[in-house]
């Protein structure tokens, strides 16, 4: 059975790096791992060997001593749409879809389709049976819950009921209202685009039972006890309300929360540090510009204070978060000056990460 770790979080928290570090860590301890990354920074992509955007899992060379294997792939939204229709539709339908301007726009630009396709790809990886674990990095969103809502939205759009709603409003009072709305839409968008949208839905409806079956399988996968959700957050700016909203959403959907992965945690400065007097004595002994040294001494006195204050602020914020989440586990991942840029750098984070298998 393949287990899944989904790393959620808003953009800018280092989610892609943390997902990769989890994957490297679990692979090093003996699992066959696949990591699905989304829009990694160039160096990380190079380190993982996923510079090419082609949807194919590629084996990543792990540091010496690793007991498992790691494959990485980068999600290509357009490629995944094309793959899905190629698998499900008759060749002539595929051909017509590929030439439909509305399909082209949906497959490249529809908001939410990135999330939807990430889930589609995840399903492929899990059902391939080739991996013990799949780690999923999620697309950068404004709010963490978008990862769930977006696929629902896209499913809603692909669902046949929309086709009916738009092109076959039915009779009665509601039908009349719908026809009014439809004629407004037609007036705004023009007949041609309505024709293309209609064609799109007709072509898609040929596959819609396949889509429905697949949607159900994907939904079951996302709710499975083998799928765990991690929340990646930045120690400097944990957006508490957003994160707690996400936990609420998980609970409502019956999905398992694994814990927080708190990134960029600064170390508590380890003293003792020289006293101001000792530093002033040092400055006097050094000679030179006395005034400049005075400023330097003040700066030196402030350094440990500032570092301690930063660490204390982070600790307090993490503590509050954990408390508000009812004591959920929080893994503290240290700040890496300059950022992580290699497989070795990822592997170095392992001691701070949840071991395999994680306690749930």
């Amino acid at each position, binding site marked *: 059975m393949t287990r899944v770790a989904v790393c959620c979080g*808003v953009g*800018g*928290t280092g989610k892609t790096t943390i997902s990769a570090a989890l994957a490297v860590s679990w692979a090093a301890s003996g699992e066959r791992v696949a990591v699905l990354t989304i829009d990694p*920074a*160039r*160096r990380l992509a190079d380190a993982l060997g996923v510079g090419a955007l082609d949807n194919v899992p590629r084996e990543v060379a792990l540091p010496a001593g690793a007991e498992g294997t790691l494959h990485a792939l980068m999600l290509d939204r357009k490629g995944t749409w094309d793959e899905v229709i190629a698998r499900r539709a008759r060749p002539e339908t595929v051909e017509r879809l590929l030439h439909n*301007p*509305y399909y082209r*726009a949906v497959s490249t*630009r*529809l*908001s939410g389709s990135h999330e939807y396709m990430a889930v589609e790809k995840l399903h492929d990886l899990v059902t391939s049976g080739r991996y013990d674990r799949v780690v999923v990095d999620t*697309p*950068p*969103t*404004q709010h963490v819950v978008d990862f769930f809502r977006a696929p629902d*939205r896209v499913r*809603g*759009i692909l669902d046949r009921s*929309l086709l009916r*709603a*738009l092109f076959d*409003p039915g009779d009665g009072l509601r039908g009349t*209202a*719908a026809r*009014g*709305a439809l004629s*407004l*839409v037609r*007036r*705004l*968008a*023009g007949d*041609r*685009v309505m024709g*293309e*949208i209609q064609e799109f839905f007709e072509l898609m409806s040929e596959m819609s039972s396949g889509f429905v079956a697949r949607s159900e399988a994907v939904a079951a996968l996302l709710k499975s006890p083998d799928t765990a959700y991690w929340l990646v957050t*930045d120690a400097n700016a944990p957006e508490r309300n957003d994160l707690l909203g996400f936990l609420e959403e998980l609970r409502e959907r019956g999905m398992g929360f694994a814990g927080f992965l708190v990134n960029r945690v600064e170390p508590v*400065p*380890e003293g*003792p*540090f*020289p006293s101001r007097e*000792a530093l002033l004595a*040092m*400055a006097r*002994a050094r000679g*030179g*510009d006395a005034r*400049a*040294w005075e400023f*330097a001494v003040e*700066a*030196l006195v402030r*350094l*440990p204070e500032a*570092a301690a204050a930063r660490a204390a602020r982070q600790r307090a914020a993490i503590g509050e978060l954990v408390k508000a989440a009812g004591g959920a586990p929080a893994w503290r991942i240290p700040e890496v*000056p*300059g*950022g992580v840029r290699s497989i070795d750098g990822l592997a170095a984070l392992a001691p701070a990460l949840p071991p395999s298998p994680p306690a749930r």
Partner: protein
Amino acid sequence: MTALIDHRLLVVVGKGGVGRTTVSAALAIAAARLGKRALVLELDQATGLPPKFDLAPGASDAPRRGMPGVDVWSLTVPQCLEDFARRKLKLPGFARNLVRNRFVDTFVDAVPGLHDLMLLGKIENMIREPLPSDPHYDVVILDAPATGHGLTLLQAARTLSDITRAGPFHDLARIIDEFLSDRTLTATVLVTLPEELPVQEAVELAGALDAEGFRPAAVVANQVEGRSIPDPPGADEVLAALAGVEHGAALERLVRGEVARGQRHEQALVDLQARLGPLGGATLLEAPRVEADTVRRVGMALAEGLT
């Protein structure tokens, strides 16, 4: 060339976590300091902007006063769609019900780019064809969403042009595209951090923006920290002196960390400057790092860079 702050619309783009919202708010404050009336906007589901001005997050029917010279507004799609129906289609009061209809909603949701176009349409209207009831703004600053790092939003008009090819949406798309592409009216502002990887990503995004005709007019390096060890005496001299002090080793580690960070930041800024060169003429602004998001201070600092 139009000075940055003399544009009518500034679109603030950049990857998540670089501080787009802080920089957007700070640009509005800087504009106000330079005697302009500024409106700073966030779109749709964003909620981060009003708190920068001590306002509660949430949509409102009209812009809210953030501080003297700066209004703040969280725009939503239904609002803009309604406005579009009223202004462009001359639909009377019942338009309200029609555009709130589920089918229209579903349609707007299902057509890529339409969502963004409605928001941009409202902004363009406010700037170029304000109603007598609309407040006048010299400059509108748009805190663009992180999704697609803002490029998707700027491309929305073209996406929709490709799909529609005729009709009122198509016409609107053409107008918006012209407005966004006019470098005397609209400027793109790219936000990044003074570290190697964010700079690398910013340069890539700048290239992508340029390829689409939205070459950034300014790049803001956010959270730039001042030198924490005064020079003179300078870090080397301080480190040498610390060797002879009791508990000096612990402090030396912190000083070395600070020095390394300072060097990384400086190097990143040099790289940024050098690599934006080929893009020609982007102004590089530095926004200082401030504790607890004191946006006002960032605004003051940017105002200095803009004069």
